[in-house]
């Protein structure tokens, strides 16, 4: 089982000061698997996925991504980050660069791709997220939904094997959520390994292979969507689901 895993977290612990934010977290993710992580705020879900590309450091346990163990070794960190794309709640586009430059920047400077090739790639990615006409605008001129799609295109341009989504629709107006989720569904259908932190339960039901429910720094429940939504084991999960589904 563990040989197939592309991501493997073993007994991961992390503290912010005295606050024990991740407590003995174990998670195995197989290639092409789509995981949706949910849980109340402060439960450590964002921190967990941020540990996977080392935006946060874990203090105990081991994290292995695509055969590379995350330690203080800078070279390993760089290699992992090349494999793992990430999409943030606040989009984090580079405001001083045009949409096209946002996408071509990393391929040109990190992968040493020739400029013309990178621009072609950028246009292909923008087609995938369905906004090629915005290529020459600046992020500040786009709507939230468009910005988030550019952010997805920017990550995809590095050709990652794994995509992490950290509440990608939480900062969006309701009418824009769908356009972003549609892009993510396409991506999932294309066979990308994905870990998505989200409260969009409709999305979870459609694409998730496995649901992970976290609370107070622990993984409380891991189950197939079917079991998770219809017949959860833990009371904490039941409570959470009843709150989130009755909104």
């Amino acid at each position, binding site marked *: 089982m563990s040989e197939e895993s592309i991501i493997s977290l073993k007994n991961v612990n992390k503290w912010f000061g005295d606050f024990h934010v991740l407590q003995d977290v174990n998670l195995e993710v197989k290639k092409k698997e789509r995981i949706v992580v949910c849980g109340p705020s402060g439960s450590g879900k964002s921190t967990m996925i941020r540990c996977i*590309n080392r*935006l946060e450091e874990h203090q105990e346990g081991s994290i292995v991504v695509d055969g590379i163990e995350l330690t203080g070794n800078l070279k390993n960190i*760089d290699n992992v*980050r*090349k494999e*793992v*794309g*990430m999409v*943030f709640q*606040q*989009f*984090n*586009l*580079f*405001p*001083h660069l*045009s949409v096209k430059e946002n996408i071509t*920047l*990393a391929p040109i*400077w*990190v992968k040493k791709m020739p400029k013309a090739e990178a621009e072609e790639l950028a246009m292909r990615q923008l087609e995938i997220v369905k906004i090629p006409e915005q290529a020459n*605008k*600046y*992020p*500040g*001129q786009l709507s*939230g939904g468009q910005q988030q799609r550019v*952010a997805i295109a*920017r*990550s995809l341009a*590095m050709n990652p094997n794994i995509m992490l989504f950290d509440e990608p629709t939480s*900062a969006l107006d309701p009418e824009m959520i769908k356009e972003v989720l549609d892009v993510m569904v396409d991506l999932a259908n294309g066979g990308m390994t994905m870990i998505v932190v989200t409260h969009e339960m409709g999305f979870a039901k459609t694409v998730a292979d496995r649901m992970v429910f976290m609370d107070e720094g622990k993984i409380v429940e891991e189950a197939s969507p079917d079991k998770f939504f219809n017949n959860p084991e833990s009371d904490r999960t039941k409570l959470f689901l009843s709150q989130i589904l009755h909104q």
Partner: protein
Amino acid sequence: MNEMNEVRKPPVATTGIIGWLRINLFFNWTNSLITLFVIYCLYQFIPWILDWTIFSADFKYNYLGEQITNQEMCSRNLDPENGGACWAVIYVRFYQFIYGFYPKAEVWRVNVAYVMLALALLPLLYAKLPYRKYFLYFTYIFPVIAYFLLNGGLGFTEVSTNKWGGLLVTLVLGCTGIALAFPIGIMLALGRRSKLPVISMMCTLFIEFIRGVPLITLLFFGMVMLPLFLPEGIDMDGLIRVLVAVTLFQSAYMAEVIRGGLQAIPPGQYEAAKSLGMSYWRMNLLIILPQAIRISIPPIVNTSIGLFKDTTLVIIVGILDLLGIGRGTLADTNWLGLSYEIYFFVSLVFFIFTFGMSRYSLYLEKKLKTGINMGAD
């Protein structure tokens, strides 16, 4: 309803010149009173200053038609009822004001350097300049050319820096100080924010020490102490010693200004850059610094203008910049008592340069603002 609104025009009294006057100058009676008072003051002041500086002033000849060679020949000293400013002092001493005591035979080199400076600034001032790339290459090598041109070497006769003076020294100190302090300041700012404690501590110590000491002290330090640190036999040029002091001073201030800009960059920008696999240097050069410097343009120009004016302090270590030449002229018995004219002229020259810098910063701000919207939206 909507159609009606479209054809309705705003009330006449709120638009056009009359509207503007009413809103801005005569909004209520206090406002009107202040407006009238200011108009009265301007009415008193403007004719007087124009008369003094231009209409009644001597430029080369006094009112008797004689060429002025000393202060006694100024119209206002011959006849206190007659005459305004005596600009002849500037005319006679113009060479010193612009070149100091640079040998006349070699002065073309300074002129070439001035023209080259203008050319080097051109691509920075106009982004749409044709062949801008080649002009920029010239900007990069200009300091080297200027060094040999002004100082000598490569076939040019050497002109010792103690013969330099006036605007030449002011520009050399100002431009070199600003140009060198900028990259050093960036490194110090990054260093101070570094996670490596030794680097961060060293940068912080340097910045706090330099900022905590008056520029005059640093100038004395450069003059007196710096030679002690050099191996015996090597004599460091006086102007270079001052330049080192000025550059260190300016880079500490620049570092703090840029650090302010760095702090305004949301952490998400770092995270996005890192998640794309960028190294520390790429992240800073491509993502963080361009944004941080953009935010810091007003304070960067502010400290640069400050430095440009502070270069006048070099007078206390015996280097004669523009103001120094002015004070020297005043001490000359031929031109005793013409302090108004001389200080007016020196102020005007400084104002032209600093005002230019301030306009340039506004232009940059406007140009770089296009489409930029910091933050999440």
